[in-house]
């Protein structure tokens, strides 16, 4: 029955399969199966004379019992027996240098709202860091429909792999693309600067080094620009630009622009967003942060195939424009109409993540009881729960991490079952036959 159900459920996807296997009829089945396993120890006394077989069966029974105890139904049962509610699964959001004991509890079904619970202890996030591979590109390659406008650009974006890859079809174009290699083409460190460019053509009109007092005259505009203030962590409070708390990098420059008519205008140049909103302003002025030497692969070789023709192309990233672009229409003459506006675009991105590290301390009444750096594959276990690093982000309150919180109910039984099952299997099928062979009885051909 389990074989047939498992094979059929594999086509449902993990979430629906879980719902199926946790449904009431199957919950009864699992309990009965466990009971049958226990009864088997009495009904088949031969098991007791064979330690391997006994351990295998005990292992399976322990795994089944532990699984039932760890299930949502098992948690409900535990709550009825002990009178103490223990959420099975949830999440915590903890800001850097702050502590929290509030857990958002996963709803037992999609139509029920999530609730909150308080743990008996708090977790303090001392620091959160992301380790990245140094030898992966810090640029993203996407296929983007540049003819579309606004949000539609996002909708038609296809992420292409970071590393040399297999062929990937660009839907609706008949074109296939394969990343060949990324290149280091900028041998110099690029210092931070403010870039002034024409929004429509992308032409860079001028660059100002990011220093207070630095400026530039642009005769073609009849205008001059001067940096009057710099921000490391730019924030706007009550309509005023202020320096935010240290630790977060959100640079900006306050610019005074004199267009020769009326009073000078003051505005803030911030980092360039990937998707600029439609704007009436023909000028785009943005802050371009420093680019360290080791962050500089800036070109990519791609192979394109269309109607049997294969060609290799190089796309260079223009740091000041913020991206590199190659329209497919410039490569192939006879693309279908829907593919005319599609470009391959090299965008500033980030290197591939190697690990997430959340350094946390467990606090009870303000006292540190335990501390650990939670990494992927290395959760924190405390107070009947396991804590896993699952997400991160930052907002106006600072950098935060999101930890998944999972009850450890049943895990001891399951773990013991794993050990018993492995011991029994290897004992029965490897060590017993070898011992028999050594005693001259030959390798067994059956029970």
């Amino acid at each position: 029955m389990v074989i047939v159900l498992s094979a059929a459920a594999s086509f449902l996807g993990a979430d629906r399969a879980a719902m199926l296997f946790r449904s009431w009829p199957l919950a009864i089945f699992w309990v009965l199966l466990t009971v049958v396993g226990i009864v088997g120890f009495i009904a088949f006394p031969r098991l007791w004379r064979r330690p391997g077989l006994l351990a295998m069966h005990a292992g399976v029974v322990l795994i089944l019992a532990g699984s039932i105890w760890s299930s949502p139904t098992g948690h409900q049962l535990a709550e009825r027996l002990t009178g103490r509610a223990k959420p099975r699964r949830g999440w915590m959001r903890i800001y850097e240098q702050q502590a929290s004991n509030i857990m958002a509890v996963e709803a037992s079904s999609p139509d029920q709202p999530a609730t909150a619970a308080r743990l008996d202890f708090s977790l303090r996030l001392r620091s959160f860091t992301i380790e990245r591979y140094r030898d992966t590109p810090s640029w993203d390659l996407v296929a983007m429909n540049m003819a579309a406008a606004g949000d539609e650009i996002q909708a038609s974006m296809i992420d292409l792999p970071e590393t040399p890859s297999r062929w990937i079809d660009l839907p609706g174009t008949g074109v296939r693309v394969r990343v060949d290699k990324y290149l280091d083409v900028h041998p110099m460190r690029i210092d931070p600067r403010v870039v002034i460019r024409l929004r429509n053509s992308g032409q860079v009109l001028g660059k100002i080094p990011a220093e207070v007092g630095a400026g530039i005259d642009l005769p073609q505009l009849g205008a001059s620009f001067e940096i009057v203030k710099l921000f490391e962590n730019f924030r706007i409070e009550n309509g005023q630009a202020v320096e935010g708390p240290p630790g977060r990098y959100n640079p900006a420059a306050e610019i005074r622009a004199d267009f020769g008519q009326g009073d000078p205008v003051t505005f803030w140049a911030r980092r360039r967003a990937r998707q600029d909103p439609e704007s009436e302003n023909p000028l785009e002025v943005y802050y371009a942060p420093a680019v360290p030497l080791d962050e500089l692969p800036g070109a990519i070789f791609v192979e394109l195939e269309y109607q049997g023709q294969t060609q290799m192309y190089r796309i260079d990233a223009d740091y000041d424009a913020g991206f590199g672009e190659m329209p497919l229409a410039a490569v192939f003459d006879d693309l279908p109409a829907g593919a005319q506006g599609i470009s391959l675009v090299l965008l500033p991105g980030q290197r591939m993540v190697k690990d997430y590290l959340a350094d946390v301390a467990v606090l009870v009444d303000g006292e540190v009881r335990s501390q650990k750096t939670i990494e992927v594959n290395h959760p924190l276990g405390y107070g009947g729960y396991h804590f896993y690093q699952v997400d991160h982000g930052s907002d106006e309150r600072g950098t935060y991490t999101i930890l998944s919180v999972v009850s450890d109910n049943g895990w001891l039984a399951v773990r013991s079952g794993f050990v018993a099952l492995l011991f029994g299997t290897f004992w029965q099928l490897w060590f017993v036959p070898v011992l028999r062979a050594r005693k001259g009885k030959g390798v067994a051909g059956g029970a």
Partner: protein
Amino acid sequence: MELKLTLQGAMIYATMVLYVVAGLAMLLKFRRVGWVVAAAGFLCASTSWLYRWAHADHFPAQTMFEVFLTLGMVLPLLSALGRWGLKTPASWADMLLGAAILFPAGFVARFAEAPQKLPPALQSGLFVPHVMAYMAAYVAMAKAAILAVGEILGRPVLPGLVDYDRATYRMICLGFPLLTLGLVLGSWWAKLAIGDFWHWDPKELWSLVSWLVYVGYFHLRYRLGRRGRKFQAALAVLGLAAIVVTLLAVTLLPALRGWHSYAD
């Protein structure tokens, strides 16, 4: 389909040729020549595998390309163990199986050769034992299924072997603990990585199906002994079919994609 015109590709093709030549030599009773060529094939497969390890900068078992490369390297070891340890010959069939196993790595374009960095979830001490246990188990079960076919056909299709039933049983005895180890380590790893030891993911479900088919085999064996041998042999073949679904279909069929699709 594509030819992989790289040093890695060349080593795969050389291994395939050596395995085929070794298999044919053994089949035509040139056993000594066959074993020498098989040893050369294993050397080539091992060099190719180690080269991949150095090139990818991690244990080569992340992508399907690397999985087939590893299977092709493990197979001669299991074949030698079968021949000298378990008295289950038919090494010529093993060599041809080795060439067939390497075929996807050598010719299927989808199983690309480009190495990938290990994502955080795969950086675990359980990665290598989990994958290697499964690789060795799969090879043992593949050999068991070949022997089981001999039992089902009821005639000596493999020279030098008479008792297919017993040989099948021995190979399954070799492979089943490894299959169990792979399943348990995978489950333990899932608990450490994402919180639950079982997710009802398609690959997990099919690995459970494979395991349960062999559990059924052993229950029949222990209840009936050598009676009902053909049915037991059919289960051995069915077990391999479930393994093939676990290994391939879950990666290739969009309907079965899930947590494990990073292996593509």
